[in-house]
């Protein structure tokens, strides 16, 4: 069960792009309300005023030119500042961005995209899950392939490269940032940042087929040292189980059809169609946010994938005995 506000743009994470958007929204709402009241006041005055004539020239000059120019100038600068900060939340604050724009013109707008991030994450939308690949120090030439969950270091901006392998999806974690489409043949960028540890939920925000509603992911923000340890752990291959019951689970996986679609690094399983399961036990959810993650839900998903998420590429497996199913679930859950 999810905590309230875990997937809400109205509860933005502190220090995130969503917090800036939320402030902008509040400013627009309050400003709009003030203008509305002002116009209504003028209307009332026009109806009930005893004055025969007004100085139209003066009204047009102040109310029609000076006021809008002043308001729109402030609003434009503010929106530009928020836009700039969204593209590059960390290194420059909104005010600095405006000053940069004034002093160097268009170059400042292009600058955010020139900087290399220490950690980059490739997220590929697929029907109906998220393939994730981490690039950074110690992740090697292939990156670290993961699925359906992101971990971010608190206080550090992380660059996401958003792609799609099939149809158009949209990456949206409301508490962290606005939505960005994932378009086949294109790479869209998004900088995510949150200053405090926490768990946020995201959802595909562009209809992408029958199970679009069951395409979610979790974003876990952890302190930086913990993040580094986690990434190192995720980069490692799976270790062979010592326990005979877990070994039975591994053998069932390798003997069955699982390995045709799934990779478990450190074993002979090399399938590329489904999510990498090397550390599946460490994730918060199964099947892209459909289920929590423990031995019971694992067993249910393996045997009932079509029942739980109809039309996805994983069959409801019928090839395991009860004991094998339990062993398989226990082994996969142990892969942390």
């Amino acid at each position, binding site marked *: *069960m999810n905590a309230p506000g875990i997937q809400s743009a109205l509860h933005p994470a502190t220090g995130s792009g969503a917090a800036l958007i939320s402030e902008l929204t509040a400013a627009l709402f309050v400003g709009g309300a003030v203008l509305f009241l002002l116009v209504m006041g003028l209307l009332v005055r026009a109806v009930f005023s005893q004055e025969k004539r007004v100085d139209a020239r003066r009204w047009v000059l102040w109310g029609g030119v000076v006021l809008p120019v002043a308001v729109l100038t402030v609003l434009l600068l503010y929106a530009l500042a928020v836009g700039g900060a969204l593209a590059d939340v960390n290194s420059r604050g909104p005010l600095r961005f405006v000053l940069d724009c004034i002093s160097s013109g268009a170059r400042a707008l292009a600058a955010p995209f020139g900087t290399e991030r220490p950690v980059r994450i490739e997220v590929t939308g697929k029907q109906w899950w998220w393939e994730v690949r981490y690039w950074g120090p110690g992740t090697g030439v292939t990156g670290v392939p993961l699925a359906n969950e992101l971990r971010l270091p608190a206080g550090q901006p992380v660059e996401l490269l958003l792609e799609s392998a099939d149809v158009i999806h949209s990456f949206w974690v409301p508490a962290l940032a606005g939505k960005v489409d994932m378009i086949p043949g294109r790479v869209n960028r998004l900088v995510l940042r949150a200053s405090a540890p926490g768990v946020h939920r995201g959802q595909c925000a562009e209809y992408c087929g029958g199970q679009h509603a069951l395409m979610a992911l979790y974003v876990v923000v952890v302190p930086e040292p913990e993040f580094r340890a986690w990434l190192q752990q995720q980069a490692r291959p799976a270790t062979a189980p010592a326990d005979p019951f877990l070994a039975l689970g591994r053998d069932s996986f390798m003997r069955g059809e699982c390995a045709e679609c799934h990779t478990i690094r450190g074993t002979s399983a090399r399938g590329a169609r489904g999510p990498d399961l090397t550390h599946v036990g460490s994730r918060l959810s199964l099947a892209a946010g459909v*289920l929590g993650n423990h031995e*019971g*839900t694992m*067993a249910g998903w393996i045997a*009932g994938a079509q*029942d739980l998420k109809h039309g996805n590429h994983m069959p409801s497996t019928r090839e395991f005995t009860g004991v094998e199913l339990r062993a398989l679930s226990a082994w996969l859950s142990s892969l942390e």
Partner: protein
Amino acid sequence: MAASIAAVGCGAVDPPRVPGGNAERGRATIERLECGACHVIPGVRGVRSHVGPPLDHFRQRAYLAGRFANTPEVLVRWLVDPPRMKPDTAMPAVGLTETEARDIAAYLYGLE
């Protein structure tokens, strides 16, 4: 005793009592652990599938797992560790405490 005799007299089935079990807490535990990943359970929000038997009309079921008498003590023991009672079952032990198992049993026996 008198109440149960009266109930039998009317042809109704008296719900088995689970000492210490709280049905409302049981429902919350079922939702948290997502027992619906394998079972259809009336009144519980969230996922549901048909991997294991549906648990509707649970109070009327005479047998558990096709072989054990459906009584509160047996059910609680089953929920805590199914493979211990039936080694070839597909249902794993999901780490329920005895209290949690009692709560869940109380909820299931509420399903007429």
